[in-house]
């Protein structure tokens, strides 16, 4: 139990997927101009991340490991994530059309979000988590993504009201903000020990 709590704190704050590991940056910059959109994206990421990490864990240990072909895991994981997102998209489109419209482009975008692949690889490769631990890790990483993107969207919506230097307008300023946010998150780095 304590171990799981440590995983959660580590994934949300200390090793935040965006601000410390720098994974999944394209959607972080693309969809952080409005808070509503960023919340939708964050929720979609949490959902897909958790489900696909459960799926890939099972496939890794019960399919790849017995045949000793662990080294093709990246190809297999991408295949699994893409298939899974497709499937989820179909189901949501059929049964929850309103949510489907709200997710819009974000759901297919997640397919190519490297944060998802990164988490699944970290689960089996770097950390070697058990099934429960890797699920919790994926969930917490998603929450960390949500936290970072909401922070970013909040700052960017506020910034829009102020006069910005012409050269920094838009993406350049977003990168500077992201750097400052990442710097702030480095403050958590001592928490584990």
């Amino acid at each position: 139990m304590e171990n799981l709590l440590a995983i959660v704190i580590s994934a949300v704050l200390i090793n935040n997927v965006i601000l410390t590991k720098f994974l999944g940056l394209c959607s972080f910059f693309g969809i952080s101009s409005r808070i509503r959109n960023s919340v939708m994206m964050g929720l979609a990421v949490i959902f897909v991340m958790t489900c696909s990490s459960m799926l890939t864990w099972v496939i890794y240990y019960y399919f790849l490991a017995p045949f000793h072909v662990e080294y093709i895991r990246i190809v297999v994981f991408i295949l699994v994530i893409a298939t899974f997102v497709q499937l989820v998209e179909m189901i949501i489109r059929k049964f929850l059309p309103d949510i489907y419209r709200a997710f819009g482009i974000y759901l297919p975008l997640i397919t190519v979000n490297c944060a998802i692949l990164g988490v699944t690889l970290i689960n089996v490769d770097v950390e070697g988590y058990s099934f429960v631990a890797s699920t919790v890790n994926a969930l917490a990483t998603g929450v960390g993504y949500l936290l970072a993107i909401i922070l970013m969207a909040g700052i960017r919506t506020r910034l829009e009201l102020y006069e910005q230097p012409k050269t920094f307008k838009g993406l350049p300023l977003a990168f500077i903000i992201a750097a400052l946010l990442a710097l702030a998150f480095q403050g958590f780095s001592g928490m584990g020990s």
Partner: protein
Amino acid sequence: MIEEIAVLGILGFAFAIGLIFASRKFAVQMDARVEQVRGTLPGLDCGACGFGGCNDYASAVVKDPSLVCACKQIDADERKEIGKVLGIDVKETMPTFARLSCTGGSNVAFEYRGVQSCAVAASTVGGFLECKYGCLGFGDCVEVCAFDAIRMVDGLPQIDKKKCTGCAQCVRICPKKVIKLQPDDVKVFLFCNSPEPARVKARMCKKGCIACNICERVCPVHAIKMVNNLPEIDQVTCTACGECVEKCPRHVLELAKPISISSTKPTEAQVTT
């Protein structure tokens, strides 16, 4: 080598079969007419119809054909085409245009140095003008106009009637509500917005209506009535004689020359099924 091919092959095959079944099972029936209507729309996603974009609007029109007049970007022929798809008749009426109803003559109450935006200025104790109904002149409307129809001239927005499509985006964004949507057949147009009493208006504004009632008195057909300290012009009775325009001491009334009601301009439409 064999194992890798086998594992990837089996996985790929299994997923493919799964997706095929899923796509059969979860197939969504789309109304073919939505696509047809969508094809007629310009695809600008301007949002003037009140829907999220052209796709949303198309599906709404198919459900409720009376919404066919909500889109301001399509012309009469395109509307007829949509009518054909939906099996209804579309009858055309007057087009509308945005017009500024302020002369910008108000005295300045205090110096404003905040964010250069009408919305922000209006939320700071109602703006920096003495007249609380006057145009603030930062041009929020210029920015929102998707058709480049508005320019700022001497601190007031000037609306290019040839480019204006009557989408009402500027009407919605103006915090002071000084831009009004007017049908093309309006004969006399009023350039003041303030319902304040005559004395107050005369003190704070150099150019606005002072509710002197002259227009009401000179009108030969009694088409003008003072309502809320502003002349209200009955556009049906009005004969566009120009008497009130001539006699108005503040020149806040203007004879509106109708812009050509050609088929290239978007027009309002009524639906008869």
